[in-house]
């Protein structure tokens, strides 16, 4: 059991800046995120796209913003729990017990949900029949590539994951790559390589087709694909891999007894607390009259939520507002010399 002042759910820009504000006022926090890297939507959806509306930063990419936020909270040495997801929140003795998918447990008076639009999960095939084989022979990520040796593998998708795995697995498997159009969004060098492998018949490349059905009798045997005008083909398959990027799902958050308005959590605008005492929601996941889904709004919400957390984490202390420019206490916390 890890005891802390605040558990932050979500390591996107809003969660990171909230952590900064907690550090500034002398609180500890632990940060949990479903992704394997820090940065949330900024790093997963638009690492290279420019952002123009961060105050005092005329232009930066999602990755640059993330890196700067990480740099900004370095002095506080907060722990990140990546590739993990908060599953359960339980109220015990006036505190919250937080359990994660990987079995970690936290005891805390405060939880700040900075979960964006939910956790990122792989997009799956639309075909019902694929569900039966999900996790066995229909896969959306690869943990152990040796299972594909000498097998027939049918890969769907046109991005870097699909292309990279088609190239990699073509060394030791019979690979068919299926994509819904002629153009690929992967890196030009990978697209070039795929075309070469297709020309010399190392892989089968089928474009303008998408999945129709998967077939098997206990174990997967084949996959049926359809063209734009309804024509179909059946390909032998031991494994079917789909790489269609990630989708955001609210997931377990919807089971924590919080009020929900569509996919968002209503909060008050004084400290961004939800209908549950000690549970705060900030960033894209919260809603209130006038809510803007801007990173800058998330920063503001995080700063106020941090002060809200102080009340429960230090019930016997009075919170005193201080400026970072003037406070020697804050400078100590930041490790800067005067």
């Amino acid at each position, binding site marked *: 059991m890890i005891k802390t002042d605040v558990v932050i759910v979500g390591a996107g820009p809003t969660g990171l800046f909230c952590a900064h504000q907690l550090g500034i006022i002398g609180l500890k926090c632990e940060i949990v995120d479903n992704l394997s890297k820090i940065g949330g*939507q900024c790093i997963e*959806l*638009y690492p290279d*796209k420019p952002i123009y509306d961060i105050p005092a930063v005329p232009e930066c990419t999602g990755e640059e913003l993330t890196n700067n936020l990480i740099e900004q909270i370095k002095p506080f040495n907060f722990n990140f729990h990546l590739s993990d997801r908060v599953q359960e929140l339980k109220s015990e003795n006036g505190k919250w017990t937080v359990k994660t998918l990987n079995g970690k447990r936290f005891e805390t008076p405060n939880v700040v949900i900075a979960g964006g*639009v939910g956790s990122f999960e792989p*997009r799956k095939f*639309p075909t019902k029949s694929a569900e039966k084989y999900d996790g066995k022979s229909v896969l959306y990520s690869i943990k152990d590539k040796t299972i594909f040796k000498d097998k027939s593998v049918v890969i769907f*998708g*046109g*991005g870097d994951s699909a292309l990279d795995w088609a190239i990699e697995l073509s060394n030791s498997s019979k690979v068919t790559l299926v*994509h*819904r*159009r002629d*153009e690929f*969004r992967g890196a030009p060098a990978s697209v070039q390589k795929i075309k070469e492998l297709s020309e010399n018949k190392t892989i089968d490349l089928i474009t303008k087709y*998408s999945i129709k059905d998967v077939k098997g009798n206990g174990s997967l045997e084949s996959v049926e694909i359809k063209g*734009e005008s309804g024509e179909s083909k059946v390909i032998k398959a031991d494994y079917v891999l789909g790489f*269609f*990027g990630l*989708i*955001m*799902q609210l997931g377990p958050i919807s089971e924590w007894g919080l009020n929900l308005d569509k*996919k968002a959590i209503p909060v008050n605008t004084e400290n961004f607390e939800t209908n549950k005492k000690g549970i705060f929601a900030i960033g*894209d996941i919260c809603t209130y009259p006038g809510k803007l*889904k801007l990173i800058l709004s998330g920063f503001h919400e995080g700063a106020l939520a941090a002060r809200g957390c102080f009340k429960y984490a230090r019930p016997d202390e009075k919170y005193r507002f201080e400026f970072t420019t003037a406070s020697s206490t804050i400078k100590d916390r930041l490790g800067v010399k005067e």
Partner: protein
Amino acid sequence: MAKIKYIEFSGKEHEADVANGLSVMEGAIQNDIPGIDGDCGGGMSCATCHVYINNDEWYKKLPEKEMGEDDMLDQAYEPKSNSRLSCQLIVSDDLDGLTVHMPEKQA
């Protein structure tokens, strides 16, 4: 201002007057029309505002896809050759009478 018709996968129809300058996605969200999520808020980075333009004349009349829209559509649920991201369809008087059909689901 344009009158936009949104048709759910089930066939249920919704009509909304959408102000010029808003996207077809925003028109759905602001009028509480189900079937279009718009998770990323219109940043062309989530493919959850995917619609079909079943009328070929309308499909051709719409502004062409910009770079990136097809890449994002690759990730949408059941994309077809008449698929568009409704966040990229900006409403003007020219779009008056447009009908969009929604996929079975967005993710």
